[in-house]
């Protein structure tokens, strides 16, 4: 059982991570989730960038806690979470999750659980920077499905 979380400004390469982790396990399945900065265009207001603030220390703690919850609930071979902060351009990945398991259902359920939980428990805050203004994203807007 291996758990790892990464909180970083840099881009990440989920497949090279997946391929490296695959070598460690006799897994039957991997499920990968990637969330991206989505473009939007409300009349004149066009999204140019997202700025993500986080709570260093608590973030890592929250992500490790989510991994533990998933590990206790399903039989998993490995869980990997990477989340970016700082300035992110439209189309760039924000968060990546990789789950390895013997069976596909456990990999799907755990990966879905982790991203849902992460959205309410990992201390990240999005600020949208358009060509005209910048403002903090409401949690409500996220529930409404504006974001992934």
């Amino acid at each position, binding site marked *: 059982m291996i758990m790892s979380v990464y909180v970083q400004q840099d881009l990440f390469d989920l497949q090279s991570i997946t391929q490296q982790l695959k070598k460690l396990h006799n897994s039957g399945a991997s499920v990968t989730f990637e969330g991206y900065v989505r473009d939007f265009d409300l009349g004149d207001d066009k999204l140019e960038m997202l700025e993500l603030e986080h*709570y260093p220390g608590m973030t890592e703690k929250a992500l490790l806690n989510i991994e533990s919850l998933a590990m206790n609930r399903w039989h998993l071979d490995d869980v990997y979470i990477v989340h970016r902060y700082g300035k992110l351009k439209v189309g760039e990945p*924000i968060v990546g999750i990789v789950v390895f398991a013997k069976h596909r259902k456990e990999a799907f359920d755990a990966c879905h659980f982790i991203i849902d939980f992460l959205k309410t428990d990992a201390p990240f805050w*999005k600020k949208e920077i358009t060509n005209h203004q910048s403002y903090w994203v*409401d*949690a409500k807007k*996220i529930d409404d499905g504006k974001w992934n």
Partner: protein
Amino acid sequence: MKIKLFYFAKVREMVGIDQEEVDVESDIKTLAELIAFLKLRGSQWQAIFDMSSSFRMAINQELAEASCKINANDEVAFFPPITGG
């Protein structure tokens, strides 16, 4: 007793600081009592804490409720609802 306070995102911008250390009376035993103490600082502080939907709290980097106990040297944080992922 000394407590470290952290502010993030919109809450940080509203209070104008990102962290501080306060020395409070030992009769402040819960987050709710700490908030009442901070609201004495003025209208901006009252505005933040009167909107219960606009902020969340953590004690020692774990999400917490207003009724949670605080102790000397705790790290307390105030921030908006989470919007990551």
